[in-house]
């Protein structure tokens, strides 16, 4: 049997692991309960995602998506409850039972990600397959670390000399002041770009270019179109071409559109 020592440093690592997985599943469950985007919670429209997956294999009826989501939610909730049980036993200093509860929680987690991976292959989504394989592996690795952490000698994180502590605080405060000043200054000067209409640059007789900053959203786009229509009342928009990524300069260009026009009849 693995030799276990109830050491504070090792327990801290265990708290991090249980805390992470408890929050992971708690938020996933909340996401399913809330459903859709709301004020202060966007989450993911899982019903739409799963329904479209089933529709792609010819099962359009919402019943299939609902059943798949309920099975998934069940697995996630059982994982969450076992992680919370593990947390309770860890707080109660009953490491052996905490380990067993954590083990069952990880079992539900691994089963969930295996279930997702099968779905990813059926629905042909290889990006999600990679994502779920990574989560499956992270869950397995967390279990191995949770079980074997006592074999690793961890340095004490709290005890540092007074000199080091002061130097640390001074550097952190100084860097924080510089960084926050820079962030707030940037916000002060650029937030307007989020909605501000951009001017069009004429590049040939009937072609205009509008370059958007990274912050610009749909409102800036619509305001720019309105501005363009107002400034060019004799012209009618015939076509809009979005510059694809290969035409943009690395990561420094945001959205670029070309407006083709024709005289209004």
């Amino acid at each position: 049997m693995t030799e276990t020592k109830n050491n504070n440093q090792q327990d801290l690592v265990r708290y991090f692991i249980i805390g992470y997985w408890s929050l992971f599943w708690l938020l996933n469950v909340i996401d399913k309960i809330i459903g859709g985007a709301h004020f202060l919670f966007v989450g993911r429209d899982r019903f739409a995602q799963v329904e479209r997956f089933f529709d792609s294999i010819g099962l359009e009826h919402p019943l299939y998506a609902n059943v798949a989501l309920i099975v998934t939610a069940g697995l996630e909730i059982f994982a969450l409850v076992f992680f919370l049980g593990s947390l309770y036993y860890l707080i109660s200093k009953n490491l052996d039972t905490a380990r067993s509860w954590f083990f069952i929680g990880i079992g539900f987690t691994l089963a969930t990600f295996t279930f997702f991976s099968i779905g990813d292959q059926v629905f042909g989504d290889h990006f999600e397959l990679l994502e779920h394989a990574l989560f499956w592996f992270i869950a397995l690795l967390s279990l191995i670390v949770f079980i074997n952490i006592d074999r690793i000698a961890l340095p004490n994180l709290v005890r540092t000399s007074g000199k080091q502590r002061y130097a640390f605080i001074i550097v952190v405060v100084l860097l924080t002041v510089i960084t926050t000043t820079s962030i707030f200054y940037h916000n002060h000067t650029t937030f307007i770009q989020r909605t501000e209409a951009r001017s069009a640059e004429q590049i040939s007789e009937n072609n205009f270019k509008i370059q958007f900053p990274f912050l610009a959203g749909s409102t800036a786009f619509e305001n720019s179109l309105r501005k363009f229509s107002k400034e060019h009342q004799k012209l009618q928009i015939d076509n809009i071409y979005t510059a694809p990524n290969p035409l943009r300069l690395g990561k420094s260009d945001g959205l670029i559109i070309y407006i083709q026009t024709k005289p209004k009849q």
Partner: protein
Amino acid sequence: MKESKFIRYFILVHWLFFAGTSVLDKIIPDVYPLWVGADFYTLFVKLFASLGITDPIFATSALALVSTLEILVFVCYLFSFVYEVKDKKKAAERWFNKGISISLVLFSLFSIGDQVFGDRFTLLEHGIFWCILLLSWTVYSYYSSADSKKISLGSKLVIQSAIIVASALTVITSISILKFSESTWNQKKSPVVGVEIAENIYKFDYPFLGDKYTLETTLKTFEQNHSELKVNYIYTGPSELNTKKKTHMLLYIFTEKVTK
């Protein structure tokens, strides 16, 4: 049951399904009812064409080779699973080791191909799978030899309470899922209502459930409701215009007044 046996099962079952569905994906090469999968044939033909090899025999042969390796892997995992169920630990380990070894060779071959074809994202994907395979093999081997702890969940009352709480939460979540499904399902068939954002320009904020049929219904309804307008042009708002994950798709319709 001991922890080590569970861990071996978790790893084995995952890779068994992974290899099994990969083989199935090759047997079913296109989109059919109940199976979409990935179109590896098209992918291979395009990759070989990018090298200047347009004869499909090369792409087909490469795909057949890959499929053969995947079948070998699947059968190894299947044998390992059967022996694991029969409690023949040593034989299960041997077949699992064979399966993982061939898998590692397969992902190494994929990585070589990714370099040759210049696909760096897929190289990363295969690199990650290779690493996950290697590490899950290490964990499996470790738990095949190490002494293991028995799972003990403590008081029966606590376990029963946990199951009751989890079941109650599942019921609550299921009701919420069903309600959400019922309230949003109509978005799939209903036309999206447009907003005029500038003279003769309309914006349509698509719901996540919206698909090609929603677009068709939307266009038909728009034309019926605006018989005085002619649709000149449809522009799909690029992802840069979206509010991160909140927006699914923005569509702009440019129109002009019909002159009689």
